[in-house]
């Protein structure tokens, strides 16, 4: 009987320990405000900006982020599987959506990781696989030709001749697993109820259109991403700029 009791005690202890998730502990709602910029300015639809010495404006700017993680030495917390950010909605010239992430474990995080686009596991699905209201149920941002969500959209017009007519349309629609990219930003983020519950992330579209060597992207000769699913050269080149174009702050 004594042996039996000891066995039960050990079993119970193991059970309790196994249930104790390393993420247990206080948690809080944590919000991040996402904004699109052009240089130092908030990006506005149809507003003239200067790019490579000529005027451009943006008509549409939107993107998916997925697998958003807060990271420190002890743990990685996935605060969202996927989010949809529309910086140029139908009813306004610009928008900076604030997303509230529920029950984020409190702690001092050393970095945040973003997935630009839709992670391959989710990207293998289609809008009809998701309930109404899900970011991934948006039909118009799925393209059967790529069998992929459209990870990011930047559409607009430019006047490369500086003749007063914006006769060059640019349309950068990036998508497909080959274009998915994750970047980790080593910005300390503290999460604590009542004290540290917010952060901000900006995406500078001027940087998005700038090569790593500081030269402007060749918009005139490459005004659009290819619609050939096998040709992701332009999409990959631009997506490579996200890390530089993104700033995280708290």
């Amino acid at each position, binding site marked *: 009987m004594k042996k039996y009791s000891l066995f039960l005690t050990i079993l119970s202890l193991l059970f309790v320990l196994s249930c104790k998730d390393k993420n247990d502990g206080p948690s809080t709602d944590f919000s991040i405000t996402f904004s699109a910029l052009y240089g130092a300015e908030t990006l506005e*639809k*149809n507003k003239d900006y200067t790019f490579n010495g000529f005027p451009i404006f943006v*008509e549409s700017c939107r993107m998916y982020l997925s697998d958003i993680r807060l990271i420190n030495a002890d743990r990685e917390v996935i605060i969202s599987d996927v989010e949809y950010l529309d910086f140029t909605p*139908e*009813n*306004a*010239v610009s928008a900076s959506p604030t997303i509230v992430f529920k029950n984020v474990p409190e702690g001092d995080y050393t970095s945040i990781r973003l997935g630009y686009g839709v992670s391959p596991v989710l990207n293998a699905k289609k*809008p*009809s696989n*998701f*309930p*109404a*209201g899900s970011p991934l*149920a*948006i*039909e*118009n941002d*799925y*393209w*059967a*030709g790529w069998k992929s969500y459209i990870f990011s959209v930047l*559409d*607009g*017009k430019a006047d*490369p001749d500086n003749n007063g*007519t*914006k*006769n*060059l*349309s*640019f*349309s950068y629609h990036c998508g497909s697993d080959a274009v998915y990219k994750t970047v980790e930003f080593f910005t300390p983020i503290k999460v604590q109820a009542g004290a540290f519950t917010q952060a901000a992330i900006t995406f500078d579209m001027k940087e998005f259109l700038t090569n790593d060597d500081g030269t402007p992207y060749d918009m*005139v*000769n490459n*005004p*659009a991403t*290819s*619609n*050939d*699913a*096998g*040709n992701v050269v332009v999409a990959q080149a631009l997506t490579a700029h996200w890390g530089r174009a993104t700033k995280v702050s708290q």
Partner: protein
Amino acid sequence: MATFLQKNALWVVISFIAGFVLLEACRPEDPGPGPNPTPGDLEYIAYDPQTYVIPKPTFFPEIPIPADNPMTKDGVQLGRRLFYDPILSADSTMSCSSCHLPEGSFTDNKKFSIGIDGIAGKRNSMSLLNVAYVTDGFFWDGRAATLEKQALAPVEDPIELHNSWDNVVKKLKLHPTYPQLFRKAFGIKDREEITKELAAKAIAQFERILISSGNSKYDRFVNGDVDAFDEEEIDGKLMFFDEGAPYNLPDAQCFHCHGGVTLTGGKFFNNGLDSVGNLSEFKDLGRFLVTGIEFDKGKFRATTMRNIALTAPYMHDGRFQTLEEVIEQYHDNGFGVVNEGAFLNQIGFPNGNGTYSGLTEYQKKAIVKFLHTLTDTDFINNQDIQNPF
């Protein structure tokens, strides 16, 4: 027994009639069209809402249903009657269905619809097919945020049904049938609880069931019936969806505005119809009238391409009679107006300097032929959406 009945046949008949009269007298009274109906006059009718599950193709996404207007069988049936009932118009001659007929995929195939006073509207009647999926506003300019709000507008529009909701609600309250139907649909206790908002909710419920059958030629093809399309239709599809690069076919760029399974994103565009010196010169300012955003002048909602062959004439002002004219218009790349859609001048193969090749006559014809594969006759013949009267 037989002898008894033969002898007393008259008394038996009289007894039956008397019994029937007594039973009727004992039923809870329906006060009818009296000026002061009894509170709770409809409570004798059972209120037992049954969820209406909207039939939809399995490959269509979940239909968004607002929390404050759940779909019920009685709600849909009430909405269907209201949709087809001329009781909504001031002179009881027109209903919603006068401008949204099933055979036209819920358009009226006129340039502009004519209201009860014989006055023509200024915009073409929009198809209601798959309207449940619209998220960015209803009407050509998106001025109604919800289907329920949209359903309120035509009744009081002076160039449509030219009525007042006060008048409609009064007629519905006095009607011999509608109070009971409102009770069954929404659980109201008496006819005084009938409101325009409930009427609009019912109409919206009916409109949400206007979903594709999933049996169009196009649907059969994309779901594996490779023999459903001929080569020309396949080419048309590849160009429509910009999937033709591996087959040396150019991009027609259609799907950017007419994408997704419903073949419309519901967004707003200036699709290059008019040449204007400045944006304020547009005859119809469209989306601008809702948002006040300068660049929204001359923009209108992209319509669904499903059943497009049934919905002529085309564009917000019904200016084109045929799909061939529509394709030619897009192929002309607009007029360079500053807020024209970015894809208008990206039709064809890229030339490498920001210009594009355009399409050949065969390619234009193939796209038109593809558009005809989107015709869904099972939808327009669906008995559940026809006139119930």
